[in-house]
Protein backbone atom coordinates (compact mmCIF):
# COMPACT_ATOMS: atom_id res chain seq x y z
CA UNK A 1 0.00 0.00 0.00
CA UNK A 2 1.41 3.37 -0.97
CA UNK A 3 -0.17 6.26 0.83
CA UNK A 4 -0.86 9.56 -0.87
CA UNK A 5 0.50 12.53 1.00
CA UNK A 6 -1.55 15.30 2.55
CA UNK A 7 -0.84 17.47 -0.51
CA UNK A 8 0.56 20.98 -0.32
CA UNK A 9 0.31 22.30 3.22
CA UNK A 10 2.66 25.29 3.38
CA UNK A 11 3.87 26.76 6.67
CA UNK A 12 2.16 25.68 9.87
CA UNK A 13 2.41 25.77 13.64
CA UNK A 14 1.68 23.28 16.41
CA UNK A 15 -1.73 24.17 17.82
CA UNK A 16 -1.71 24.52 21.62
CA UNK A 17 -4.48 25.84 23.90
CA UNK A 18 -2.11 28.58 25.08
CA UNK A 19 -1.58 29.70 21.48
CA UNK A 20 -5.12 29.44 20.14
CA UNK A 21 -5.81 33.19 20.01
CA UNK A 22 -2.36 33.91 18.61
CA UNK A 23 -2.78 31.35 15.85
CA UNK A 24 -6.11 32.80 14.78
CA UNK A 25 -4.52 36.21 14.19
CA UNK A 26 -0.93 35.32 13.19
CA UNK A 27 -0.07 36.08 9.58
CA UNK A 28 1.36 33.25 7.50
CA UNK A 29 -0.22 30.22 9.18
CA UNK A 30 -1.39 27.87 6.41
CA UNK A 31 -2.15 24.84 8.60
CA UNK A 32 -1.86 23.44 12.13
CA UNK A 33 -0.92 20.16 13.74
CA UNK A 34 -2.44 19.19 17.09
CA UNK A 35 -1.34 16.62 19.70
CA UNK A 36 -4.02 13.95 19.39
CA UNK A 37 -3.92 12.92 23.06
CA UNK A 38 -4.95 16.45 24.10
CA UNK A 39 -8.22 16.14 22.19
CA UNK A 40 -11.42 14.29 23.01
CA UNK A 41 -13.69 13.32 20.17
CA UNK A 42 -17.01 15.11 20.51
CA UNK A 43 -15.40 17.86 22.60
CA UNK A 44 -12.94 19.54 20.26
CA UNK A 45 -11.99 23.10 21.29
CA UNK A 46 -14.10 25.79 19.62
CA UNK A 47 -11.03 27.71 18.46
CA UNK A 48 -9.69 24.61 16.71
CA UNK A 49 -13.03 23.86 15.05
CA UNK A 50 -13.13 27.46 13.85
CA UNK A 51 -9.83 26.92 12.02
CA UNK A 52 -11.10 23.68 10.50
CA UNK A 53 -14.32 25.39 9.40
CA UNK A 54 -12.26 28.13 7.74
CA UNK A 55 -10.79 25.34 5.59
CA UNK A 56 -7.42 25.24 7.35
CA UNK A 57 -5.90 21.72 7.48
CA UNK A 58 -5.77 20.46 11.09
CA UNK A 59 -3.60 17.33 11.33
CA UNK A 60 -3.56 15.11 14.45
CA UNK A 61 -0.16 13.99 15.74
CA UNK A 62 -0.05 11.22 18.36
CA UNK A 63 2.66 10.73 20.98
CA UNK A 64 1.48 7.68 22.91
CA UNK A 65 0.80 4.80 20.53
CA UNK A 66 4.21 3.27 21.35
CA UNK A 67 4.44 1.82 17.83
CA UNK A 68 8.00 0.63 18.39
CA UNK A 69 6.94 -1.14 21.59
CA UNK A 70 6.99 -4.93 21.54
CA UNK A 71 4.02 -5.37 23.87
CA UNK A 72 0.64 -5.76 22.15
CA UNK A 73 -0.51 -2.50 20.54
CA UNK A 74 -3.10 -0.63 22.62
CA UNK A 75 -5.71 -0.41 19.88
CA UNK A 76 -8.04 1.71 22.06
CA UNK A 77 -5.50 4.54 21.66
CA UNK A 78 -5.46 4.02 17.90
CA UNK A 79 -9.28 4.06 17.82
CA UNK A 80 -9.22 7.37 19.70
CA UNK A 81 -6.77 8.78 17.15
CA UNK A 82 -8.98 7.53 14.30
CA UNK A 83 -12.04 9.22 15.83
CA UNK A 84 -10.26 12.55 16.31
CA UNK A 85 -8.87 12.31 12.77
CA UNK A 86 -12.39 11.80 11.38
CA UNK A 87 -13.79 14.70 13.35
CA UNK A 88 -11.03 17.01 12.18
CA UNK A 89 -11.56 15.89 8.59
CA UNK A 90 -7.77 15.43 8.48
CA UNK A 91 -6.08 14.01 5.37
CA UNK A 92 -3.49 12.11 7.46
CA UNK A 93 -2.44 11.18 11.00
CA UNK A 94 0.90 10.37 12.60
CA UNK A 95 3.04 9.27 15.55
CA UNK A 96 6.76 8.58 16.09
CA UNK A 97 9.32 5.83 15.62
CA UNK A 98 9.65 5.12 19.33
CA UNK A 99 8.26 3.30 22.33
CA UNK A 100 6.87 4.84 25.53
CA UNK A 101 5.60 1.85 27.54
CA UNK A 102 7.19 -1.43 28.62
CA UNK A 103 7.03 -3.73 31.62
CA UNK A 104 4.21 -1.70 33.20
CA UNK A 105 6.19 1.57 33.19
CA UNK A 106 5.28 4.70 31.25
CA UNK A 107 8.24 6.83 30.13
CA UNK A 108 6.08 9.85 29.26
CA UNK A 109 8.60 10.69 26.55
CA UNK A 110 9.71 9.22 23.23
CA UNK A 111 12.41 6.55 23.54
CA UNK A 112 14.39 5.09 20.65
CA UNK A 113 13.96 1.53 19.42
CA UNK A 114 16.87 -0.72 18.47
CA UNK A 115 17.64 -0.43 14.76
CA UNK A 116 17.54 -4.19 14.27
CA UNK A 117 15.59 -6.49 11.95
CA UNK A 118 13.71 -7.79 14.99
CA UNK A 119 12.60 -4.32 16.11
CA UNK A 120 11.73 -3.37 12.53
CA UNK A 121 9.42 -6.39 12.24
CA UNK A 122 7.59 -5.31 15.42
CA UNK A 123 7.28 -1.72 14.22
CA UNK A 124 5.99 -2.85 10.83
CA UNK A 125 3.34 -5.07 12.46
CA UNK A 126 2.19 -2.23 14.72
CA UNK A 127 2.11 0.30 11.88
CA UNK A 128 0.10 -2.07 9.66
CA UNK A 129 -2.42 -2.63 12.45
CA UNK A 130 -2.63 1.13 12.98
CA UNK A 131 -3.14 1.74 9.25
CA UNK A 132 -6.02 -0.75 9.29
CA UNK A 133 -7.77 1.30 12.01
CA UNK A 134 -6.94 4.87 10.95
CA UNK A 135 -8.69 5.47 7.64
CA UNK A 136 -6.22 8.03 6.24
CA UNK A 137 -2.52 7.86 5.28
CA UNK A 138 -0.30 7.43 8.33
CA UNK A 139 3.13 8.99 8.89
CA UNK A 140 5.99 8.36 11.33
CA UNK A 141 8.47 10.88 12.65
CA UNK A 142 12.16 10.52 13.55
CA UNK A 143 12.80 11.36 17.23
CA UNK A 144 15.52 13.14 19.19
CA UNK A 145 17.41 10.63 21.36
CA UNK A 146 20.08 10.97 24.02
CA UNK A 147 20.96 7.28 24.00
CA UNK A 148 21.29 4.52 21.46
CA UNK A 149 20.73 0.79 21.59
CA UNK A 150 23.80 -1.38 20.99
CA UNK A 151 24.11 -3.59 17.90
CA UNK A 152 22.35 -1.40 15.30
CA UNK A 153 21.96 -3.23 11.98
CA UNK A 154 20.73 -0.16 10.04
CA UNK A 155 21.45 3.55 9.91
CA UNK A 156 18.41 5.61 10.89
CA UNK A 157 17.66 6.49 7.25
CA UNK A 158 17.96 2.82 6.17
CA UNK A 159 15.63 1.84 9.00
CA UNK A 160 13.06 4.44 7.91
CA UNK A 161 13.38 3.39 4.26
CA UNK A 162 12.71 -0.25 5.19
CA UNK A 163 9.74 0.90 7.26
CA UNK A 164 8.22 2.95 4.43
CA UNK A 165 8.92 0.22 1.83
CA UNK A 166 7.20 -2.43 3.91
CA UNK A 167 4.21 -0.44 5.19
CA UNK A 168 3.68 2.31 2.61
CA UNK A 169 3.66 4.82 5.46
CA UNK A 170 4.74 8.44 5.08
CA UNK A 171 7.49 10.26 6.97
CA UNK A 172 7.66 13.40 9.03
CA UNK A 173 11.29 14.53 9.09
CA UNK A 174 12.12 16.65 12.13
CA UNK A 175 15.27 18.64 11.36
CA UNK A 176 15.58 19.84 14.98
CA UNK A 177 15.72 16.18 16.03
CA UNK A 178 18.42 15.54 13.42
CA UNK A 179 20.37 18.43 14.91
CA UNK A 180 19.84 17.13 18.46
CA UNK A 181 21.07 13.67 17.49
CA UNK A 182 24.12 15.12 15.73
CA UNK A 183 24.97 17.06 18.88
CA UNK A 184 24.21 14.32 21.41
CA UNK A 185 25.01 11.12 19.54
CA UNK A 186 27.45 12.34 16.91
CA UNK A 187 25.25 11.22 13.99
CA UNK A 188 25.61 12.79 10.54
CA UNK A 189 22.45 14.73 9.61
CA UNK A 190 23.54 15.33 6.01
CA UNK A 191 23.97 11.61 5.47
CA UNK A 192 20.43 11.13 6.83
CA UNK A 193 19.18 13.77 4.38
CA UNK A 194 21.06 12.05 1.54
CA UNK A 195 19.56 8.63 2.26
CA UNK A 196 15.95 9.37 3.19
CA UNK A 197 13.22 8.38 0.66
CA UNK A 198 11.93 11.89 -0.06
CA UNK A 199 8.98 10.65 -2.11
CA UNK A 200 7.52 9.56 1.26
CA UNK A 201 7.82 12.95 2.93
CA UNK A 202 4.53 14.25 4.37
CA UNK A 203 6.04 17.33 6.00
CA UNK A 204 8.88 18.50 8.17
CA UNK A 205 9.11 19.66 11.80
CA UNK A 206 11.26 22.50 13.13
CA UNK A 207 11.66 23.49 16.79
CA UNK A 208 13.92 25.29 19.23
CA UNK A 209 16.10 23.90 21.97
CA UNK A 210 18.93 24.70 24.33
CA UNK A 211 22.20 23.21 25.54
CA UNK A 212 22.57 22.42 29.24
CA UNK A 213 25.57 20.67 30.81
CA UNK A 214 26.88 19.56 27.45
CA UNK A 215 23.57 18.02 26.35
CA UNK A 216 21.33 19.60 23.71
CA UNK A 217 17.70 19.52 24.81
CA UNK A 218 14.94 19.59 22.19
CA UNK A 219 12.74 21.73 24.44
CA UNK A 220 10.30 23.32 21.98
CA UNK A 221 10.55 26.21 24.45
CA UNK A 222 13.43 28.19 22.95
CA UNK A 223 14.01 29.98 19.65
CA UNK A 224 14.91 27.91 16.58
CA UNK A 225 18.72 27.83 16.22
CA UNK A 226 20.36 29.07 13.02
CA UNK A 227 21.98 25.62 12.67
CA UNK A 228 18.51 24.03 12.56
CA UNK A 229 17.40 26.50 9.88
CA UNK A 230 20.54 25.54 7.95
CA UNK A 231 19.46 21.89 8.09
CA UNK A 232 16.04 22.92 6.77
CA UNK A 233 17.84 24.63 3.86
CA UNK A 234 19.87 21.44 3.31
CA UNK A 235 16.61 19.48 3.21
CA UNK A 236 15.20 22.00 0.71
CA UNK A 237 18.21 21.42 -1.57
CA UNK A 238 17.08 17.78 -1.83
CA UNK A 239 13.31 18.14 -1.96
CA UNK A 240 10.48 20.65 -1.76
CA UNK A 241 8.73 19.73 1.50
CA UNK A 242 4.90 19.72 1.16
CA UNK A 243 4.73 21.36 4.58
CA UNK A 244 6.90 22.85 7.32
CA UNK A 245 5.68 23.02 10.91
CA UNK A 246 6.97 25.08 13.82
CA UNK A 247 6.60 23.38 17.22
CA UNK A 248 6.46 25.60 20.29
CA UNK A 249 5.25 23.96 23.50
CA UNK A 250 6.30 26.22 26.37
CA UNK A 251 7.56 29.71 27.32
CA UNK A 252 5.33 31.10 24.61
CA UNK A 253 6.82 34.24 23.05
CA UNK A 254 4.90 37.30 21.79
CA UNK A 255 3.05 36.92 18.49
CA UNK A 256 5.66 39.02 16.72
CA UNK A 257 8.40 36.50 17.58
CA UNK A 258 6.31 33.56 16.39
CA UNK A 259 5.50 35.42 13.18
CA UNK A 260 9.23 36.07 12.64
CA UNK A 261 10.05 32.38 13.13
CA UNK A 262 7.32 31.36 10.68
CA UNK A 263 8.68 33.87 8.16
CA UNK A 264 12.18 32.43 8.63
CA UNK A 265 10.85 28.93 7.88
CA UNK A 266 9.09 30.21 4.77
CA UNK A 267 12.27 31.90 3.61
CA UNK A 268 14.36 28.76 4.22
CA UNK A 269 12.19 26.61 1.95
CA UNK A 270 11.39 29.16 -0.74
CA UNK A 271 12.82 28.19 -4.14
Amino acid sequence: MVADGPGRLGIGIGWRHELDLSIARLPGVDWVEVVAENLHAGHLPETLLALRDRGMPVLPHAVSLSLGGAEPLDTARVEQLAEVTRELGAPMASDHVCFVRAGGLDSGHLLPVPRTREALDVLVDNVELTQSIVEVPFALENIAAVLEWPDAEFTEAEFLRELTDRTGCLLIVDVANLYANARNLGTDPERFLDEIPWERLAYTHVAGGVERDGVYHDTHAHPVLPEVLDLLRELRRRTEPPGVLLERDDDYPPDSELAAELAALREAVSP
Partner: protein
Amino acid sequence: MTSPRERLAARQAELLKALLAGGDAPAGFATDRLRIETNVLRNKRSRLVAFLRPDLAEALGDRFGALFREYAASNPKTDAIRARAYADAFGAWLVERGEVPKPRSRFGRWLRRN
Protein backbone atom coordinates in the same frame (compact mmCIF):
# COMPACT_ATOMS: atom_id res chain seq x y z
CA MET B 1 11.06 -20.73 23.60
CA THR B 2 10.42 -17.01 23.49
CA SER B 3 9.52 -15.22 20.26
CA PRO B 4 11.60 -12.32 18.88
CA ARG B 5 8.78 -10.00 19.90
CA GLU B 6 8.82 -11.29 23.48
CA ARG B 7 12.60 -10.93 23.60
CA LEU B 8 12.37 -7.31 22.46
CA ALA B 9 9.58 -6.64 24.98
CA ALA B 10 11.84 -7.94 27.74
CA ARG B 11 14.75 -5.74 26.60
CA GLN B 12 12.53 -2.67 26.42
CA ALA B 13 11.15 -3.40 29.89
CA GLU B 14 14.70 -3.82 31.20
CA LEU B 15 15.71 -0.44 29.73
CA LEU B 16 12.69 1.37 31.18
CA LYS B 17 13.29 -0.22 34.57
CA ALA B 18 16.90 0.97 34.47
CA LEU B 19 15.82 4.47 33.47
CA LEU B 20 12.88 4.94 35.82
CA ALA B 21 12.96 2.39 38.62
CA GLY B 22 16.58 2.00 39.63
CA GLY B 23 17.12 -1.22 37.68
CA ASP B 24 20.55 -2.40 36.56
CA ALA B 25 22.01 -0.93 33.38
CA PRO B 26 21.22 -3.25 30.44
CA ALA B 27 24.23 -4.70 28.65
CA GLY B 28 25.71 -2.50 25.93
CA PHE B 29 24.34 0.85 27.15
CA ALA B 30 26.66 3.64 28.27
CA THR B 31 25.86 4.46 31.90
CA ASP B 32 26.35 8.21 31.41
CA ARG B 33 23.78 8.10 28.59
CA LEU B 34 21.31 6.24 30.79
CA ARG B 35 21.76 8.86 33.50
CA ILE B 36 21.14 11.69 31.01
CA GLU B 37 18.01 9.95 29.71
CA THR B 38 16.74 9.45 33.26
CA ASN B 39 17.09 13.19 33.85
CA VAL B 40 15.34 13.99 30.58
CA LEU B 41 12.42 11.71 31.46
CA ARG B 42 12.09 12.99 35.05
CA ASN B 43 12.26 16.63 33.93
CA LYS B 44 9.63 16.02 31.28
CA ARG B 45 7.32 14.34 33.79
CA SER B 46 8.05 17.08 36.32
CA ARG B 47 6.91 19.77 33.87
CA LEU B 48 3.71 17.86 33.14
CA VAL B 49 2.96 17.40 36.87
CA ALA B 50 3.59 21.12 37.45
CA PHE B 51 1.23 21.93 34.57
CA LEU B 52 -1.49 19.65 35.94
CA ARG B 53 -1.04 20.83 39.56
CA PRO B 54 0.10 24.48 39.38
CA ASP B 55 -0.95 24.82 43.04
CA LEU B 56 1.83 22.40 44.03
CA ALA B 57 4.39 24.17 41.84
CA GLU B 58 3.40 27.47 43.40
CA ALA B 59 3.46 26.15 46.98
CA LEU B 60 6.87 24.51 46.58
CA GLY B 61 8.58 27.13 44.42
CA ASP B 62 12.24 26.21 43.84
CA ARG B 63 11.84 22.99 45.84
CA PHE B 64 9.38 21.50 43.35
CA GLY B 65 11.98 19.93 41.05
CA ALA B 66 14.05 18.22 43.73
CA LEU B 67 11.00 16.92 45.60
CA PHE B 68 9.44 15.61 42.43
CA ARG B 69 12.65 13.82 41.43
CA GLU B 70 12.75 12.22 44.87
CA TYR B 71 9.13 11.11 44.52
CA ALA B 72 9.57 9.84 40.97
CA ALA B 73 12.70 7.85 41.87
CA SER B 74 10.69 5.62 44.20
CA ASN B 75 7.31 6.03 42.46
CA PRO B 76 7.82 5.93 38.69
CA LYS B 77 4.65 6.42 36.69
CA THR B 78 3.15 3.13 35.61
CA ASP B 79 0.81 2.57 32.69
CA ALA B 80 -1.98 1.80 35.17
CA ILE B 81 -2.35 5.39 36.42
CA ARG B 82 -3.44 8.40 34.38
CA ALA B 83 -1.22 11.49 34.27
CA ARG B 84 -3.57 13.57 36.41
CA ALA B 85 -4.00 10.86 39.04
CA TYR B 86 -0.21 10.53 39.16
CA ALA B 87 0.14 14.29 39.73
CA ASP B 88 -2.45 14.03 42.50
CA ALA B 89 -0.58 11.10 44.05
CA PHE B 90 2.53 13.30 44.19
CA GLY B 91 0.38 15.93 45.92
CA ALA B 92 -0.81 13.35 48.47
CA TRP B 93 2.82 12.28 49.07
CA LEU B 94 3.76 15.92 49.72
CA VAL B 95 0.90 16.26 52.21
CA GLU B 96 1.96 13.06 53.95
CA ARG B 97 5.51 14.37 54.24
CA GLY B 98 4.30 17.70 55.56
CA GLU B 99 5.77 19.56 52.58
CA VAL B 100 2.47 21.22 51.80
CA PRO B 101 -0.58 21.78 54.03
CA LYS B 102 -3.61 19.60 53.61
CA PRO B 103 -6.40 21.72 52.09
CA ARG B 104 -9.77 20.07 52.66
CA SER B 105 -11.14 20.80 49.21
CA ARG B 106 -8.17 19.31 47.41
CA PHE B 107 -8.22 16.24 49.61
CA GLY B 108 -11.91 15.82 48.80
CA ARG B 109 -11.15 16.07 45.14
CA TRP B 110 -8.36 13.55 45.53
CA LEU B 111 -10.69 11.15 47.35
CA ARG B 112 -13.38 11.43 44.70
CA ARG B 113 -10.89 10.68 41.98
CA ASN B 114 -9.32 7.62 43.60
